[in-house]
């Protein structure tokens, strides 16, 4: 709940600097949370390309990360879902060819993570 500006403080015209929506966290919309099982992932990027909320971060890894079947995956790899923005639509889980993502109720996921 940020302080709202007065009319004297507005920019000229109705203009905004780029990408300010990063300050608006849509993660709170989630009812279901994607649980990413890295050991089942083949880093195929299907989930990344479909994610409508750009909520699956990726990285370039030279040393590689362990994935499905204990294999080492190098190059572009997917990381854990960014829960700040993920709305929990479940497309990633549904489209994952390796079934590396499962959806659980947000409240349960939260309590599970508290216990951890």
């Amino acid at each position, binding site marked *: 709940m940020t302080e709202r500006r007065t009319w004297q403080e507005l920019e000229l015209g*109705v203009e*905004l*600097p*780029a*990408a*300010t*929506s*990063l*300050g*608006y*966290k*849509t993660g709170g*919309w*989630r009812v279901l949370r994607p649980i990413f099982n890295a050991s089942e992932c083949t880093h*195929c*990027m*299907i989930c*990344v*390309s*479909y*994610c*409508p*909320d*750009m*909520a*699956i*971060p*990726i990285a*370039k890894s030279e040393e590689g990360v362990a994935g499905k079947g204990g294999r080492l995956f190098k*190059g*572009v790899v997917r990381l854990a879902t*960014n829960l*700040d*923005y993920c*709305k*929990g*639509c*479940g*497309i990633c*889980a*549904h*489209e994952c060819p390796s079934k590396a993502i499962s*959806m659980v109720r947000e409240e349960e996921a939260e309590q599970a993570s508290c216990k951890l």
Partner: protein
Amino acid sequence: MPTLQEIALKTTGADARIVSGHRMCSGCGIGSIVKTVLAASDKPVVVVSATGCLEVVTTIYPFTAWNTPWMHLTFENAASVASGIEAAYKVLKRRGKIDEEVNILAVGGDGGTYDIGFQALSGALERRHKFMYLVYDNEGYMNTGNQRSGATPFGANTTTVPAGKVSFGKPQWRKNLVEIAAAHRISYVAQAAVNNTMDLYKKAQKGFSADGPAVLAVLQPCPSNWSFDSSLTIQYSKLAVETNFWPLYEIENGIVHINTKPSNRKPIEDFLKGQTRFRHLFRPGNEHVIVEMQKMIDDEWARLLKLEESGIQF
């Protein structure tokens, strides 16, 4: 041709031209479509959005999800605004006031394209402005809750042409925007769908590099108003392609090319099932609607195959 990995790098992180924090419905594929199309440009992209889902959810003041120059004016004029931007671009370059090369992208939903923005689009195509027009087609006015548009399919239940005791929903087939655009003799028109990222990316690349205007129509299943579970957006898009309800094809310099030919065409029921807007078609008395729909789809497909075979310039 880039890999899915390379596309992912362009759509995620600091260089992405559209970023997280937008307020599209959970499971709405517009985000995937737009990020993929934007990634396909090798130059900075200036975007103009028509009023609609995309515009409303990406720029609720003081938040914007755009990480590239973007503007919105009104509902029906994205193509005219793009004309003005392109004119400004040409003259400011000619006069040495700017030096950066850019691509211009106009985006609208089917309401802003097939219906109210149709004249502006036709005018801009006829004048040969160099820009790409992207329509994310969710087959109705989904931003305002499922009203009928010129892109709504035959048989669909909408709030303005509801199915009722004496109505099975929309009695007309949708207009063929791709062929109408191609009739302007522009060099690139294509139909794509959200489920096929590589195909969409390639088409966007071709559109951006076309000589003159290009039109890209992309099917976008709407979880909210077609009413299916938010995880099934991609599945419904696939079914639309596999039933030939939404063929993937392109018209390049007038020559038709079908990109995907389903080896085993699925029946249209597979696509209709589970969507609230078609639920009434499965009730007794409406069997003929599905039969008619199937026939229309098959006829259209046969016609498209003939167009491709003929090699005649569109």
